[in-house]
């Protein structure tokens, strides 16, 4: 079965500190893409970062970076210099390279930023 597990229902971090959100997945496919989405209180789903499974190098977007461990099927998100605007639900997802290109989603992690 294709699944995504986000083991931390909720995380909190002090403003300006660094936090890491975990995500593990299970797929037998060799070709896939991984995504992190952010859902702030406005409920708009926003793409934060993406990673191609064939790339060894970890993706980075400003203060957001990933730690992609393909063998361990792990795809964690690191947020550096946390800001109040980072408070949101964060969803991990992947898209498999089969004929249907489905998106498989995790349950989400709620991130709280303490001022």
């Amino acid at each position, binding site marked *: 079965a294709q699944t995504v597990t986000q083991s931390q229902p909720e995380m909190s971090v002090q403003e300006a500190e660094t936090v890491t959100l975990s995500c593990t997945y299970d797929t037998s496919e060799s*070709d896939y893409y991984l*995504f992190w989405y952010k859902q702030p209180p406005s409920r708009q789903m926003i793409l934060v970062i993406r990673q191609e499974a064939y790339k060894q190098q970890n993706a980075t977007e400003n203060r957001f970076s990933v730690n992609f461990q393909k063998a361990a099927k792990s795809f964690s998100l690191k947020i550096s210099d946390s800001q109040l605007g980072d408070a949101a639900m964060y969803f991990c997802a992947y898209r498999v390279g089969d004929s249907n290109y489905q998106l498989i*989603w995790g*349950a989400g992690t709620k991130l709280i930023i303490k001022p």
Partner: protein
Amino acid sequence: DAGVIQSPRHEVTEMGQEVTLRCKPISGHDYLFWYRQTMMQGLELLVYFNNKAVMDDSGMPKDRFSAKMPNASFSTLKIQPSEPRDSAVYFCASSFYRLNTEAFFGQGTRLTVV
């Protein structure tokens, strides 16, 4: 492009009434997804279309839910009759038929069935 457009943003209805949610995907996108988000169940895929054809509707309660995509720029999700347990936020999303592309989401419709 204006992005994925959903209407209405909010809907309050009485149990037993018919509810229709609407979605306009991003022009040129091949895929259209309908998701339901609740506190308990997270983000559930109800149904998705590829070039207007249903690819998978196994997540949709078929006794009361129906989804249609009559053309490439419009889709509806209908609930008849509605029940209080249908109260949730319903998202529509669209994407290209490619592995390396993300799904773009609409603002969602918050449905409350009383």
